[in-house]
């Protein structure tokens, strides 16, 4: 039996029964050989789940200034905020108040462009997770300043921090994302269509060792014009094309052909299921994110036709790298996001899928609290949103910074806020709801055991 990483992951899962931490397992490479034999006994396949669940990741590309998304409204904390953020601060009287179920250290509000989110929060359909970010272990200010704990590689670099968010495993040599590793473990290998569906092309989150996302876009899938197996006049051409692919001996060409084969094997079933999906009365705003979420809702309601008891969707929204013009552009971005979320939630409710689908945001980093004149620069921790019927909504999880004053214990400098909750904890909470076992979660999030809580409690 040839050793590959898929088997490696599976073997870690099956061997971790009785093993205390994932790190211990990762360090002990000799375990691999001895446990491989048992890996085939691990339950896989389509009959594992008898319910339907989907995760929808909305990746806010560029680094969302989320300390301007969830803003202190208590007088004292607002004044500190206003003093730090200066010309980027929202007026206190413009903020929309929210009333979390649990006690918070100070009251908070949303920008006036986020009334749709306010509604979702107050109705209990949406929660915030405070000050989350990339960490290799719990990190205090002095630790970070003196490098006495390992810090995430290339902090403040877009692509490196995106990788960390999407992989939750920055140390690995080959980058695989946590949703991809989930698919490696739980996906029905008989189904040619991936459980990971992307509306924004290649991404690390959904890239596994053996499983890859299947890409489509807001208009669905494009069908082949001249090599379509359903068209008899294409038959000869298709046969020749297949022969050419078989004759190719180049590693790059073969990878290209495998993408073609994935397309050819799945286009028709996906196209048909989209076509047969019910329409609803949900009204979406006119923006690119909303169009993508509308397609996600259709695909989620087609899950039976696609034979998928579990699905992960990847959708991204760009423009959050607000180095300039932030006072104008950022509220607009938040408004588009907010209204799209509300429409998507309404659509899912109309389809009876609200409890089955959980939507969550990610963004590579927060931004500096200080301004560069008309914008902000790359920060670290930030807040995220989780939405759905299975979310214990109307609440704020994690730890809000004590306040937003510069040079506080939370501030690494210039208002770069040190995260108090890790990407690993946030993602693992979602994975647990998704139906993964403790052992699987331990294997998928090898750094999780370095943090106190593996379940942040925001999912019911």
């Amino acid at each position, binding site marked *: 039996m040839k050793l590959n990483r898929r088997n490696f992951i599976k073997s870690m899962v099956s061997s971790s029964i009785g093993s205390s931490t994932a790190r211990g397992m990762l360090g002990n490479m000799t375990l691999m050989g001895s446990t491989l034999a048992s890996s085939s006994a691990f339950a896989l396949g389509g009959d594992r789940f008898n319910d339907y669940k989907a995760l929808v990741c909305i990746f806010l590309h560029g680094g969302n200034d989320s300390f301007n998304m969830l803003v202190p409204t208590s007088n004292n904390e607002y004044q500190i905020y206003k003093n730090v953020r200066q010309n980027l601060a929202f007026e206190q009287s413009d903020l929309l108040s929210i009333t979390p179920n649990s006690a918070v250290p100070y009251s908070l509000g949303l920008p006036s462009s986020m009334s749709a989110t306010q509604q979702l929060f107050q109705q209990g359909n949406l929660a915030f997770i405070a000050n989350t970010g990339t960490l290799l272990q719990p990190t205090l200010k002095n630790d970070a300043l003196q490098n006495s704990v390992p810090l995430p590689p290339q902090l*403040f670099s877009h692509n490196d921090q995106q990788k960390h968010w999407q992989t939750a495993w920055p140390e690995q040599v080959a980058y695989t994302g946590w949703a991809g590793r989930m698919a490696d473990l739980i996906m029905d290998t008989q189904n040619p269509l991936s459980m990971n569906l992307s509306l924004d092309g290649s991404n690390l989150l959904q890239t596994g060792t053996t499983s890859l996302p299947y890409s489509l876009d807001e208009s669905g899938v494009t069908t082949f014009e001249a090599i379509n197996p359903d068209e008899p006049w294409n038959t000869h051409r298709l046969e020749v*094309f297949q022969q050419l692919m078989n004759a*190719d*001996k180049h590693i790059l060409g073969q990878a290209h052909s495998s*993408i073609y084969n994935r397309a050819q094997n799945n286009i028709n079933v996906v196209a048909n299921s989209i076509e047969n999906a019910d329409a609803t009365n949900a009204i979406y705003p006119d923006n690119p994110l909303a169009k993508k979420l509308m397609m996600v809702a259709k695909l989620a309601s087609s899950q039976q036709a696609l034979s998928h008891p579990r699905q992960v969707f990847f959708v991204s929204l760009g423009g959050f790298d607000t180095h300039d013009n932030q006072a104008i552009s950022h509220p607009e971005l938040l408004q588009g996001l907010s209204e799209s979320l509300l429409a998507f939630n309404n659509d899912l409710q109309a389809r009876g899928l609200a409890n089955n689908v959980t939507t969550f945001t990610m963004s590579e980093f927060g931004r500096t609290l200080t301004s560069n004149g008309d914008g902000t620069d790359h920060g670290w921790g930030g807040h995220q949103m989780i939405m759905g019927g299975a979310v214990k909504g109307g609440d704020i999880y994690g730890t809000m910074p004590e306040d937003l004053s510069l040079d506080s214990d939370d501030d690494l400098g210039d208002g770069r806020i040190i995260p108090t909750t890790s990407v690993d904890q946030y993602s693992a909470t979602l994975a647990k709801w998704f139906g993964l076992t403790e052992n699987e979660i331990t294997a998928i999030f090898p750094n999780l055991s370095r943090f106190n809580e593996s379940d942040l409690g925001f999912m019911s």
Partner: protein
Amino acid sequence: MKKVFVLLITLLLTSCGGSSETTTPPAPPTPPAPPTQAELSASARFLNQATFGANIAMVKNVTNIGLSNWLDEQMALPTSSHVEYLVELEPTLNLSDDERLKRRDRLEAWFNHSITAPDQLRQRVAFALSEIFVISDQTTFNEDIVGIANYYDLLLNSAFGNYRDLLEHVTLSPIMGMYLSMLGNQKPNEVENIRPDENYAREIMQLFSIGLVELNIDGTEVKENGNSIPTYDQNIIKAFAHVYTGWNFSGATEATWWQFYRNYESMEPMVAIASFHDSGEKPLLNGFIVPANQTPEQDLEMALDNIFNHQNVSPFISKQLIKKLVTSNPSSAYVERVALVFNDNGNGVRGDLGSVIKAIFLDEEAINGFSNDKDNTLQTFGKIREPIIRAVHLWRAFSASSPNGRFQFDWPSYFFAQAPLSAPHVFNFFSPNYSPPGAINDNNLIAPELEIVTENYLTRTSNFFAYSTLWGHTEFEDESTKDERILIDLSSLKSMANDIDELLDYLDMLLLGGTMNDEMRAILTTAYQELNDEEVNERLSNLLFLIMISPQYTVQK
């Protein structure tokens, strides 16, 4: 044994034999041997690396004069300017007072020059540069069509100059200034908690010059106890951010600093206004310190020199260019050979891009990479052709034209997930290090261009070639005469239509640079003969379609 391309030989013999009929002929000169199929193929393979794709005229020219001379000739050609194309186009469009040039017009300039411009080397290298020094129309200045084209001209004009000049031109470009927000960046204001913008400071180093970690001259990472070493930290970013303060549109003054629209000027380099510049000292790379109280211009000169002289620049830029032009997985020796030329062009000059470009294309690995690789059970040399370049190659190879006389093609983003100067962000359409899971990743290889080849886009690209070959040729019966379709000309193939060997020799040479193996040739031969009863245009366009979507063609070797 492959047959020689007969038509070509005929042409060459005719042109050699045209001496006048004089009285007593001297001893007849030995006519130069006609180029062999292998020689023509080698020229085409070279042109597929160095241009937007081989066409027969250029193949002949390269075969005649040799690679090195051809490169020299190309570098001496004047730039085919995209701005000038737009300036000449605009009066012909009969725009009303409230109409402006549109994105489609800029794309037309790009397709026109990429397909037809004589300075093909320059156009192709500038396209590679546009995917390293990225600006994009997917942003606020998207309607400034000429300004964006002017940035492309900047890359064209700098392609064979010194990298240090290129870095300065890019830095002072107002388009780049807006894209990465150096324009309007101001000195600190402690009262308002304002500090300099770090956007350009970060990306010029991460993406345009030295990268994130220390490199050896051969492009491999320097390791210390198994760990890579970051090239800079946040303090260095901050210091550079302070350097890049005080710059604004040409013509702006201290009084008009804040008046963006009044100042707007995207055709001239940015200028500095000292009162907005931070005058403190600034610790930069490798321990170098910019002293206090200098002018903005002095600070910038020192800072760009500091970056330019960093040891990473030569392997970083050399490897990026090799990957964009020749092969995704160059040997470290190849990278080192080119990087050494970057360090010294032989005359003591650092950063001579013309010499670097020559070193890339004339390297043993670029020339013999395929033949050294072709008998391996799994071949790795080469790169996935960018989808948009496959399209331009088709149109170049088969003398494309349009019924309306222009090259209007508005949908590159839809078909190819890319369009010139239109990336989703400064990290380009695809990462230079993308490694898809599976065999490529398992073998520690990369395939950057595959990042945009998703199922959906592969389907659309395939459909593009269906439209552009099966139905997109001049022989296709169609009533319309003034439409925008870009049509290929199959007439060059028709004389070979009854000889599949000759036909495949020609297509192999022109499209695949002679890399078609016997198995592929046998498959296509059988397939072609099976369609003997079909009409000739259908047989030819079908064959062409199959080659253009084949994995063998998709990989440039």
